[in-house]
């Protein structure tokens, strides 16, 4: 809830400054922002429903066992594989990540999940190959997978 206050305060402050500088721009900024919000609203609500269902059916002990800090390499590898293969939009991965953390998953596991989701795209690889060629696209994904694993381990070590 503290986080919400930061956003509200910052949005209010930014709107005020913007409004004083340029009314027209501010209004079109609001429109753009609300349009983006509207675009993600339904998929966002869907994922909240799915998370609520999952929270009911998946007992926290199971998450702690497979994704917690004592799960060792297994949870970490599961997270990296799922993150690399699935194509979950970023904004949707955060509520999932947050509930995984609350249920006892480790920071390293959640970090590697998020980072592979963002940086590695197995599903979009054919498209990427069209742009960069097979060798470069595969190399980029492999290197990003390695990097994501390093990032996950470092975050786990720091937090």
């Amino acid at each position, binding site marked *: 809830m503290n986080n919400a206050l930061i956003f509200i305060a910052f949005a209010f402050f930014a709107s005020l400054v913007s409004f004083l500088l340029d009314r027209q721009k501010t209004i079109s900024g609001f429109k753009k922002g609300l349009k983006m*919000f509207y675009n993600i609203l339904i998929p966002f609500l869907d994922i909240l429903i799915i998370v609520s269902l999952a929270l009911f059916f998946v007992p926290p002990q199971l998450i702690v066992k497979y994704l917690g800090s004592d799960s060792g390499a297994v949870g970490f590898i599961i997270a990296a594989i799922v993150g690399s293969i699935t194509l979950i939009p970023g*904004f949707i991965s955060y509520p999932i990540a947050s509930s995984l953390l609350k249920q006892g998953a480790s920071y390293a596991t959640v970090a590697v999940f*998020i980072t592979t989701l963002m940086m590695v795209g197995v599903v979009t690889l054919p498209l990427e190959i069209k742009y*960069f060629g097979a060798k470069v696209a595969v190399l980029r994904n492999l290197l990003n997978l390695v990097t994501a694993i390093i990032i996950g381990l470092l975050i786990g070590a720091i937090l």
Partner: protein
Amino acid sequence: MTKVTFQNFKPYIWLLSFAIFTLGSFCFGFDPGKTIYNSFTVSIIEMISFIPFLFIIVGLFDVWFPKEKIERHIGRESGLKGIFLVIILAMLQAGPLYGAFPVAYILYKKGASIRNIFIYLGAFSSLKIPMLGIEIGYLGLKFTLVRTMVSLPLFIALGYFMEWYLKDKNFKVNQIHETC
């Protein structure tokens, strides 16, 4: 006159089913349904408490710092200035990673270095402002800062590596014509 078809309903299928399920659960006193509904309410309050404000910020950002303007200025800049510019350009974007490939093509056409093209892809995947906002809201400022600070040097290094590796291999980015 718009015809009511399944296609119209499709986007709302989860919401509708969930509403019916919840209504049913409360009518018939189905406890698991109530529990699921309660955790849904908690998460929806969490979401509504900051996401709309985040998008107001993002919208304002978009009109005051239009990415098209930066895109126009970007090109063969080398060194720190070039890196800085592509990172800023990437931060102003939104959407999934495959949306970054067409921009990578534009950067390539404008003469950006291999290094900067890959730094752009790295920054696009993990430093977009709307995403950072949602990340702060859900995982906290500390997590977001640590992740950003750890990721940034790593994908800059990746950019350098790609440039070193691809230097004499006549690397090019192809333009893809959308056919579907």
